[in-house]
């Protein structure tokens, strides 16, 4: 800018009575503006909190009394020994659990490779009158643990395996092995 910057020649002195320089004023303006920006951002985000979640857990769905037919996503673990695929049919039935509540799911279509019992999944669809979730799409969610298969085997053998702990509640702390 064309403004005269004679303050660059002054060394910053501890004198407090010095009139505010342009630089200092600009610094304060930027800091205050950033403060307001972050406050506004925090308010917007807390107001939109419910709309920003990608899926609800079975507990949340039962608490919220979601109407049948309303399109939602549910997320949780595929309950052990719950996957049933009737012979000659393409529909798969399984139960999604957050270890507190469980919702039965019916899905017709291709499941992702990572889909298996004990795995985190997100199903998109709606509840029917009987409380069964009719999924139109199923996505697999994997956790943040990465390790070679041998290490996973060793952990399972030593009993320090915590599969699916990440789905328990709202991204609960998952102790890393």
């Amino acid at each position: 800018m064309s403004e005269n910057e004679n303050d660059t020649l002054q060394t910053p002195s501890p004198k407090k009575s010095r009139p505010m320089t342009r630089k200092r004023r600009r610094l304060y303006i930027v800091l205050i503006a950033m403060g307001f920006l972050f406050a506004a951002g925090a308010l917007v985000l807390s107001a939109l909190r419910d709309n920003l979640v990608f899926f609800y857990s079975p507990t949340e769905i039962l608490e919220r009394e979601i109407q049948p037919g309303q399109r939602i996503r549910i997320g949780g673990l595929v309950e052990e020994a719950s996957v049933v695929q009737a012979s000659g049919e393409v529909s798969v039935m399984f139960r999604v659990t957050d270890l507190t509540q469980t919702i039965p799911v019916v899905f017709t279509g291709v499941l992702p490779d990572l889909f298996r019992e004990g795995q985190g999944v997100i199903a998109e669809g709606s509840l029917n009158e009987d409380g069964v979730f009719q999924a139109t799409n199923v996505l697999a969610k994997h956790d943040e643990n990465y390790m070679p298969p041998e290490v996973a085997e060793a952990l399972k053998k030593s009993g320090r395996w915590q599969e699916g702990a990440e789905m328990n509640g709202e991204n609960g702390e998952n102790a890393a092995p």
Partner: protein
Amino acid sequence: MHRFANPNVFLRLSNRIMPWSTGVMIASLVAGLVFALGASPADYQQGESVRIMYVHVPAAWMALFIYICLAGASAVALIWKHPLADLAAKASSPVGACFTFIALATGALWGKPMWGAWWVWDARLTSMLILFFLYLGHMALANAFEDSERGAKSAAILALVGVINIPIIKFSVDWWNTLHQPASVVRMGGPSIHPSMLTPLLLMAIAFTAYYVTVVILRLRGEILARKIRALRMIRVQAESKGESGPYLREI
């Protein structure tokens, strides 16, 4: 600080840094690729597709890191008006946009086989897409005005406003239910990633950082030289207009 804002000091300094940053980039990229593609194990549940991580994650880190650099340079440019800060911001945003695009593209390629979807509108993916648009907006705004200083100033304000997106990207996976898994490396309680897979990841991160340093130095040099040439032309035009012949008749 003021010393490094002098373009000539910067040019001399950059001559010293360039060989090092280039060397580190090549060495860590070669080592990182050897580990990423061969000398690291497959994942226990994702199999071989986990190797996408060695490009995806460092690219996403760089997207955030470069944005922080961009915002820092913009703040310095707005408050202290250092001559190099605007140029550094202008040089950084296309590099950041590229890394963001790489993170989004590799994420889609990784998401399809693992999640079962190329793209979902969860908080992490959406905030990352917004980051990409912020970079594009910065590039467009910086070049939108005839007067380059006005453009730089508006772009700097956009860069500072966009900073709010950075903590949202980082913590989106903790604040909201997302399809994207939580952080594996920068997290409380240490990395949840096996050391044999962390090695290639960190090597690639070093390579990408060195690449950014190298490319920004190259771009800054180009900008500085372009401005010097422009200034010399202005001087010549002014000198000529003082003489008898008009400036418009001569080809510059």
